[in-house]
Every structure is written in C-alpha cells, then in structure tokens.
C-alpha cells in the first residue's frame, strides 16, 4: 500500500469527492488562490475552478451560515475553518442552527455539511491560537464529531463525513499533517462514524486517545513493551457519537485505564471518558482512571513554558506507571 501524509490523504479525498458529486463544494478562507493556509486544498482551485472551491472573506459566521443554508437546499459544503480558535465567531450558526435544524423542524430538511478544522497547539502559537474546543461540539446533540489520528482514517472518515447527511465537525491537527501512513489506492473504503478502534492490543492497561494523542500513545506503547508493560491503545476516532462499548470492553479486559487528550484538563474530553469508564466498568477497575491533559492556563508563548503545558509521552508514561502501581 502506498504511504502518504495525512495532508495528502485529505487533499486526495477532497479532490475525489469534488469529482464524484457536483453538489460537493469547498468553502473557506485562503483555500483557493492561497492554496490553503496549511496546503490541505493545494491545487484544487486550479483543478475544479472557483465554483467548486470558494475563497471567502473573513466572515466565518456569515459563510458558515451560508453553507448551512446551501446544505438545506441540497448542496454538500465542506467548510474549512483555518483553526478551531476562529470557529468561536461562527459557533452560533453551528450549535444553534446546524445541529438543530433536522430535529427541530420534525425531520423535514437535512443539513449535509462538513466543517474541517485543525485543533490543538504546537509551535508557540500562543494563547489564542492553540486551543482545543472539540469537547464543546461533542457536547451537542445533532452534531457528529470525528478526529482521525492517521492518514488512513483521515481519508475514510472524510469520505464518511462528506457522504453523511448530518453536520459533521472534522477535527484535524497541524502536527499530524506531515505524518505518514499506509492508504490503499483504489479502494473506496469509508471509516464509519461512531466507531472507535483498538489500534494495539494489550493486557496491562488501556490508553484511550484520539487524534495527535493516539500517535503519542502508540509510541509510548511500543517503548513500554520493552519493559514488559503491555498497553492496549484505543483510538476513539469519533467523539460524538462516542463508542462506549469498545472503551468498556477494553477496560474490562485490562482493568486499568489512562485517558489522554490535548485539551484542558477540567471539563475536557478526558472527563467524559473517565466518568464513563468508572460507571460501566467499576467492578473491573483495579485503579482509578488517570487523566492526562493540557495544563489549565492560557497557553504562554515562551517555548519551554508552552511545551511544558501540553501533554506528551512523559506525562502519559507517568500516568501509566501510576495506574500500574501495586500490580504484580
């Protein structure tokens, strides 16, 4: 199987879906002439023209709302929000409108659209450009939220999201764009929304993760294997709907769990996962579920402070060791 980057997987898939269905169109700031702030849409304007690849002014609330309205009439817009930090100016359209229209109006109209945006922060982008808000969207009934951790899933979930008839929030990560992985060439596979994956089987502890943190979890699992610690890694892939059965099954087997996410600790993604595990696997737990997440501070710019505020392999290893304490 060819090995390509996460960026390439997204770029290919967007192109393929544009070619497959003329109701699919891309919208966003700098996706055309500029070819994408992070080059995810590179070359697509040249290939498909300005009707299908639409450069927008800086008016997120307006063009996200336009995408929703267009979806109500049968288009399938794929909107890029340059980074998730900027979606705050458009969040009323997403949460008070897109997520409710199908249900609130008695199922008479659908809102088939995707909003893709990178979340999280690396590289000293500072307090306003390094945040994670996927937990906010995962909280909202009516939305679907996915967050692929590798090129294969990026392609499969993007296909699923574009072909899905509900609004899907597609969470990416700047730090994943250059990572590589195997992606089948001709096979038109999709990765189902709402289904997690056990990326690595293990017996001592379950690590629940998604997006960039899954990549870290896989490295840590490999490293600890040499010490004889067997780590099972669950990649959530979807945050809403949340695949609780897969998480629970794994923890019932390993009896120990660590949850890792890049967002802030309190009220973040890890809270829901930890709460779910203690609820449904209480009698199987030999230690409290440990959470590894970002430090609760507006991310400082200074290099070392910034790096020290985000979870990494060290913090994950520390958490794994502490849940394993006393295990013989």
């Amino acid at each position: 199987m060819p090995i390509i980057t996460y960026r390439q997987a997204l770029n290919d898939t967007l192109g393929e879906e544009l070619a497959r269905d003329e109701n699919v169109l891309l919208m966003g700031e700098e996706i055309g002439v500029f070819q994408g702030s992070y080059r995810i849409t590179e070359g697509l304007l040249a290939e498909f023209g300005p009707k299908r690849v639409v450069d927008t002014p800086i008016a997120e609330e307006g063009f996200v709302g336009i995408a929703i309205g267009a979806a109500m009439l049968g288009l399938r817009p794929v909107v890029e929000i340059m980074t998730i930090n900027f979606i705050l100016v458009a969040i009323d359209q997403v949460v008070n409108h897109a997520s409710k229209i199908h249900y609130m109006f008695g199922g008479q109209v659908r809102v088939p659209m995707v909003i893709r945006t990178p979340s999280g922060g690396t590289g000293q982008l500072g307090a306003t450009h390094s945040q994670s808000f996927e937990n906010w969207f995962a909280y909202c009934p009516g939305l679907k939220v996915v967050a692929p951790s590798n090129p294969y899933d990026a392609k499969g979930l993007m296909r699923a999201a574009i072909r899905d008839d509900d609004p899907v929030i597609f969470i990416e990560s700047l730090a994943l764009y250059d990572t590589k992985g195997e992606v089948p060439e001709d096979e038109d596979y999709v990765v189902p929304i709402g289904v997690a994956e056990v990326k690595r089987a293990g017996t001592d502890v379950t690590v629940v993760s998604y997006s960039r943190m899954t990549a870290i979890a896989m490295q840590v699992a490999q490293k600890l294997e040499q010490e004889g610690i067997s780590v099972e890694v669950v990649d959530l892939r979807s945050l809403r709907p949340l695949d609780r059965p897969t998480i629970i099954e794994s923890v019932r087997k390993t009896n120990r769990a660590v949850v890792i996410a890049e967002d802030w600790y309190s009220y973040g993604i890890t809270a829901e996962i930890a709460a779910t595990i203690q609820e449904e696997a209480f009698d199987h737990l030999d230690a409290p579920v440990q959470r590894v997440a970002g430090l609760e501070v507006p991310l400082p710019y200074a290099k070392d402070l910034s790096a020290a505020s985000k979870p990494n392999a060290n913090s994950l290893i520390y958490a794994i060791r502490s849940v394993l304490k006393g295990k013989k």
Partner: protein
Amino acid sequence: MAKVADPARSALERENADELKHYYYQMLLLRRFEERTSEMYVKARIGGYCHLNIGEEATIVGLMAALTPDDYIYTNYREHGYVLARGVPPGPVMAELFGKEGGVARGRGGSMHLFDAEKHFMGGYAIVGGQVPLAVGAAYALRYQGKPGVVVAQMGDGTTNIGAFYESLNLAKLWKCPVLFFIVNNGYGMGTSVEMGSSEPDLWKKGASFRIHGEQIDGTDMLAVRDAVRRLRTKAEAEGEPAILDLVSFRFRGHSVIDADRYRDPNFVRQGREEHDPVRNFATMLHDNGIADDVWLKAAVDKVEKEVQEAIDFANASPEPKFEELYDNMYASPVPNIPGTEDAMRAVRINRGEV
C-alpha cells in the same frame, strides 16, 4: 388638456376584484388566527414564547402575493402569518403551537420554529439574525444549481444591528445571491426603538456600505408591498442583485403575548392602532370602491371565524408526540452508538418515576 384620473383609483382599476378580495380574506385570517392564538396561550394550550403578527398582515400578504412557488422563505420567530399566507392550512399550524404530532414540525418546533418543506417555508428561527446567513445560503444554492427563484430573508428592525446581518449583506452582494432582505420595521425590538438601536435609523439605507439598493415601503399598504417585492424579486432573480426592503408598520401589542407593553404610552398605542390597521383600511378601501359590499365583508369574517375554530379543533384532536419517538430525526444518517427507542422509553420511565 385631458382630465387627470385619481391615480389610486385608476391603479385599483387595474386590479382583479377577486384577487383583492382574496388578499383581504388572507389578512383577516392572519388577524383572527393570532387573536385566537393569544387566547389559547392564556388558556395554557400554548407554551414557550409566542409572538404575534397583528398589525403586520399587509406586509405578509403583500410579500406572499408577489412570490412564486420557486421562492424560499426564512423568517424569525414571529412567523405564524407567513406560514398561513404561504398556503399552509391553519390546522397543522395551530397544532404546532399546541405541541401536537399533527403540527407542521411534529410538535418539536413550537411557535418560534414552524416549517413547511413543500411550500418552501424554510423555518422560523429564534436567535436574532441567525436566519439571515441561512437565507443567503439558500440563495447561493439556487444560483449554484442554476435554479429559478429568490429567497426572502425576513427579519425585524432590531435585527439590523447584529453582525450576522452585515456579513450577510456583504456576502450576498459579493456572490450575487438572489436574496431580498425583508425588514419588518414595527418600530421596536422588544422595548428598544429603532432610534435607540441603530445609528442609521433609516433602515433602507443600511445597504450603503455594501452597494446594496434599499427602499422604504409602507408595510400597512398590502398592494404597495406586493408591487415593491415583485419589482425587486425580478431584479434579484435575473441579475443576482440583492435588495433591502424596509417595511414600516405598527406593532399593535407587546413584543410577545406575555409582554405587558409597559414602555409604550397607551395613547401612542391606541392612536397607532387607529391609524395603521392594515386589515380595516383594506376593508374600507374595498367597500368605498364598490369591490366588496357589507354582506360579503360579513361573510368573510364568518368564514375566517369558522376556519380558525376548525384549526383549534384540529389541534385539540391531534395526538401528543410519542415518548418512544423522542430521538427520531436527531440524525438523518443513522450511525452506531446513537440513542434509540429503548433508550428513550427507559429514560422517560425513570423521569416519570415509573421505575
């Protein structure tokens, strides 16, 4: 030198009498529907927030008289009349206000969230300004698909102060979207007058920063509204040229059924109702021009009375939504791990203390 004819009358002569009578019937229906709605609210048959169109009948009927079946309509939460004038039967509308399964949104939406896909009524929305980008998006889709028609983005005067409205104006003009920004200017956003809310109180001028044409129209003159909409919708459809319509009317009552309207001088309100009643004025016009006599006018009142009562009966008779269907339509594309009928029933039983 030829004798100059009375322009109003000669204009009327060009009108079709039956059409004029139908317009009157529609306005009467809206008026009576809202009066009974407010009764039903007081009787607690209707809950939540409830906003009436009383005083805005000419604006609504005038708009609908000019639209074609191809056109789409997005409104705010003050939308009962729009749905009725667009041709949705009163029964399902009242049933929605009652929260019944027979309602236009299966009782899920309520007064602020009516919808009728078939009639292209694309919903009443209750976040101020939220419907405006959606309407532009619908117009964008028409253009994208090369389909005929225009989209109406209805809103109130107070809504013209929120960012979504301005972003929408810019994008609509930039992308040549066939959309009419239809501002129902009833003088107030709740207790806030137009002057208190807008540094440019001539709302039709608010397109100036975007090269969008605007017009002020007497929103109590049904024929004037119809003609203005016809003219501007043609231009919008043909040239993708959006326009602003500032429809001035008078709000007969408080902001919503529960608003005591303490902030408006009672004399001002009484006088406004006297002078700006579009329904009564239209009746007088029909009568004085010999288009409808007292007998017909009385019959129209009776007809409407009966229809609205039937709507209430329909609503009363319509069943309550079923608990097991609580999660229906949460997602259009089912995927694993979303809640279903059993989850609904279990949750509801717990909630009702049945387990």
